[in-house]
């Protein structure tokens, strides 16, 4: 059963996933998540969404760009 109002858990969501909660808040969120299926599903969803945002961005440089960047070496401050 849920002991905390879900609004509080939602408030902690982003910082929980960012791992920036204080120890007290962390325990509060963990204990609520263990009891509340509603919030647990939403946290899981949010986590997978973040993974999506991160992994779709794993794109390597186009071929040839590195060579162009290397050619910029030695540029003078006045040029």
């Amino acid at each position: 059963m849920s002991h905390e109002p879900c609004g509080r858990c939602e408030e902690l969501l982003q910082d929980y996933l960012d791992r920036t909660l204080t120890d007290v808040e962390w325990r509060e969120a963990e204990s609520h998540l263990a009891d509340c299926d509603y919030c647990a599903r939403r946290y899981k969803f949010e986590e997978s969404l973040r993974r999506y945002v991160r992994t779709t961005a794993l794109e390597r440089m186009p071929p040839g760009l590195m060579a162009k960047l290397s050619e910029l070496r030695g540029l003078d401050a006045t040029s």
Partner: protein
Amino acid sequence: MSEPDTETEARRIATEARDRARFEEEALALADQVYRVARRLVGSREEAEDLVQETYARAFRSWRSFTPGTNLRAWLLRILTNLNVDRGRKLQRTPQTQPLEETDYYLANKVASAAGEEALEADEVVERLSQDSIVKALADIPPQYRDAVVLVDIGDFTYADAAQILDVPIGTVMSRLHRGRRALKQHLAEEALG
């Protein structure tokens, strides 16, 4: 100039050349990561390539202003975000600002109500999103929010580093990040649920 002075000068030049070469190597080793952030800040591959080249040109010219031992990736991305503000932004389509759903559970709730609570499986919804969905969604959120989301959620910067890169207080990064994530979710929800 006496001879010892010439020698000192020669040594100074040699040391500087070595420091510079080291700086350039270290900067180039970060190019993939710099490109990845650029790719998400601007609309097209070509623009991202241009932006990265401009960034490196400026970085190599002003390498002396980098303090060795500090965060080079953050330093490079600060140049990049400043260049991006200077150049493209004025030309970019200004996204329509829609009223934001002020809830973090927004997307999950929307999916749940569309699919029926039992059917809510996070992975299934995320599978409906393509590689392009994220590009489109990022293009549609206000630039300040986009910068914060891209630096923290894609570039893996801490709030403090992102604040330094964007030259705003940490609190501002956090509020832009939170609003940006919500705006992103709204766009992704529209995309996933049609």
